[in-house]
C-alpha cells in the first residue's frame, strides 16, 4: 500500500488581524503552517498505516520555495515515511493547472501510489482545484469533500458531505481523495517523531528531474493570468450601538428587516 499526501505551506492567518483603515490583512509577524486541511489528510494516511502495518508507506509531497522543507519535516514528524520537495525557480507563479502538472509528474516519477490524499482546499488560494486536476492528469477517479474514509484492501469507502446530504461511494485504487476538517482530529507530533524528522532525508526534484517542458511550467505554463489586483473599498457604513443606545439600534434593525429583508 503506497499512499501519497499532497500538502501546501500557507501563511498562518489564524491570528491575522485586519487593518482598520484599509481593511487589508496585516501579514507581518505571521509565520507559515501546513494548510490546516492537509493536516487532516496526513492524519488519514497515518490512521490507514496504523491499520495496514509497516507494508504501508506514506510519502508527502509539496511544491514550493526551499523553505517549504519546514512543512515537510513537520509532516515527517506526524508520521510520514518519505518527503519530496518540488522546488525550482521555474515553478514560480504557477496557477492551479501548472501546480497540478508538477505534482502529477512528480507522483508518476516517485512511485505507483494506490491512494493520494490532499486537503479540500488551501486557506490562501482557496481554489480547491489542484486535487481534481491532479487526478485528471493521472487518469484517476477523485472523491472531493470527504468526511469519512474506510480502508479496504482493494478499495476505499468514503462519505462525501455535499450541500443537501451525504453520499457514500466505493472507489477502486488508484484514486485521489480531498478531505474536509470533519474527517478527523489531527494528532500532535510526538517527540520521537520530531527528533527523527530533523535528520530525515528529503528528496528534492526540479523541473529537469521531472522533464516537463518549460512552456508548461510556472507562470509561463499557467493557462490563467492575473491581470489586475484591486483592494475593494469598504462600502458598509457601520452603525455602532452600545449601552443605552442598544434598544434604539435594535428598533432600527427591526424596521429594516420589516421593510426590506422580509419584503423581497
Amino acid at each position, binding site marked *: 500500500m503506497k499512499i501519497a499526501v499532497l500538502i501546501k505551506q500557507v501563511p498562518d492567518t489564524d491570528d491575522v488581524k485586519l487593518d482598520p483603515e484599509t481593511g487589508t490583512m496585516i501579514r507581518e509577524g505571521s509565520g507559515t503552517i501546513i494548510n490546516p486541511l492537509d493536516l487532516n489528510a496526513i492524519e488519514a494516511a497515518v490512521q490507514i498505516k496504523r491499520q495496514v502495518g509497516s507494508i504501508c508507506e506514506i510519502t508527502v509531497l509539496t511544491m514550493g520555495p526551499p523553505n517549504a522543507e519546514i512543512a515537510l519535516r513537520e509532516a515527517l514528524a506526524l508520521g510520514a515515511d518519505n518527503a519530496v520537495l518540488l522546488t525550482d525557480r521555474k515553478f514560480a507563479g504557477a496557477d492551479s493547472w501548472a501546480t497540478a502538472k508538477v505534482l502529477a509528474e512528480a507522483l508518476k516519477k516517485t512511485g505507483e501510489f494506490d491512494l493520494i490524499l490532499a486537503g479540500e482546499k488551501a486557506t490562501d488560494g482557496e481554489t480547491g482545484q489542484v486535487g481534481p486536476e491532479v487526478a485528471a492528469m493521472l487518469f484517476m477517479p477523485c472523491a472531493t469533500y470527504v468526511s469519512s474514509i474506510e480502508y479496504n484492501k482493494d478499495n476505499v469507502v468514503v462519505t462525501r458531505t455535499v*450541500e443537501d446530504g451525504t453520499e*457514500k461511494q466505493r472507489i477502486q485504487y488508484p484514486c485521489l481523495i480531498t478531505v474536509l476538517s470533519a474527517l478527523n482530529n489531527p494528532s500532535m507530533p510526538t517527540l520521537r517523531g520530531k527528533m527523527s524528522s530533523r535528520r530525515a532525508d528529503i528528496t528534492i526534484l526540479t523541473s529537469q528531474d521531472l522533464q516537463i517542458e518549460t512552456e508548461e511550467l510556472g507562470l509561463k505554463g499557467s493557462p490563467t493570468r492575473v491581470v489586475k489586483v484591486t483592494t475593494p473599498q469598504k462600502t458598509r457604513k457601520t452603525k455602532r450601538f452600545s449601552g443605552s443606545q442598544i434598544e434604539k439600534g435594535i428598533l432600527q434593525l427591526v424596521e429594516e428587516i420589516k421593510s426590506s429583508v422580509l419584503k423581497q
Partner: protein
Amino acid sequence: MNPSVMVYTEIRNGSIHPVSYELTGKARELANKLDCQVVVVTLYNSLGDKLENFFSYGADKVIQSQDECFSFFNQQIHTNVLSAIIKQQQPQIVLAPATTNGRTVLPAVAGTIHTGLTADCTGLDIENETGLLLQTRPAIGGNIMATIKTPHHRPQMATVRPKTFKIPEKIEKSGIIEYFEINQDMKHSTIEVMDYRPLEAGSENIQDKDIIVSGGKGLKRKEGFDLLKELADILQGGIGASRPTIEAKWMEYPHQVGLSGKVVSPKLYFAIGISGAVQHIAGMETSEIIVSVNKDPDASIFQVSDYAFCGDLYDIVPKMIELLKEKIPNQSNGKEGESNVQ
C-alpha cells in the same frame, strides 16, 4: 458563427437548481457582447422541471443527456461527458456553479482538456479590445480582488457561487433542444455510488437561506445556540457557526461558515459572539446586511458590519427576539391565527 458561451447546469434530485438560471442569464449578457449563442448542458436521469425554462432566461440551445448513470453524482462520468460535450461544441467560455458538483467536475475537465479555470468568480465581463473573459474573484480572504484572464487556452472556464448573480427577467424566446448520446466508454467508472442520504428536515443547506444566525465562542457554552435558534425561527432563518464552535462540538460541520466551511451570502447575517477571524469574514462578507453582537469594542467583525452591537449578547439577543416578536406579528403569531380559523 462565433464559438458559444456554455453553461454547465446543476440538477439536483430531479429539479433545476436556481444557480443554473443565474448563470444562463450571465451567459446571455456575455454572448450578446460576443455575438454568439448560449448553450446549456443538462445531465440528469429524472427531471420535474421543463428544459424550455432555459430559453426564457436566454439560452439558444439546450444539450440534453438523460441516463440512469446521472441518478447520482459520479465524478468520472460527469467529467467524461462534460469533456466530450466541450470537445464537440467547442465553446469559447464555460460557466459552472461553484457547488460541490461544479467544483469537482470543472477542475477535472480543466486537467483533462488542458485549459484554465478560475474558482468562485464574483464578476464576469468581456474585455472590449480582445473579446477575452475577465474573471474577477476575491483573493486572500476577500482582502483583494484579482482579475484573471485565460489568454491562449480554450475554453475560458469559471465557476460562480450560487446567488452571485441574479436570475434575469423571463423573456419570450425559443430555442432548440439537442440530444447528446453517451457511450459505454464515458460510463466506465471505478466509483460505485452506494448510498445517498438527504439532510434531515430542519437541517437544510444554510447556503439556500435568506437569513442566517451564526454563533461563535462568545456564546460561552453549547446551549447558547438554543437562543440563536429562537431568533432564527422567528425569521425562518438557518443556523451558522464559527470554526471554534465546530471544533468544540457545539454545532455540526454542515453549519460551519468560513473558508474551511461554507461560504454564504444571505440577505441578512447575524454574527453573534464571533470576533471575526479572517477565515470567518471571508465566508460571509458578501451578505447584504450584516449584524454583529460582541462584547469586545475592537472586534474585527464590527468593521464589516452594518449594525454593530457592543455588549453582552445574553442581554442583546433576547431583546432582539422580544422586539421582533412584537413588531413582526404575522410571523410569530402564525399558530394562533390558525387556531382562530378553526
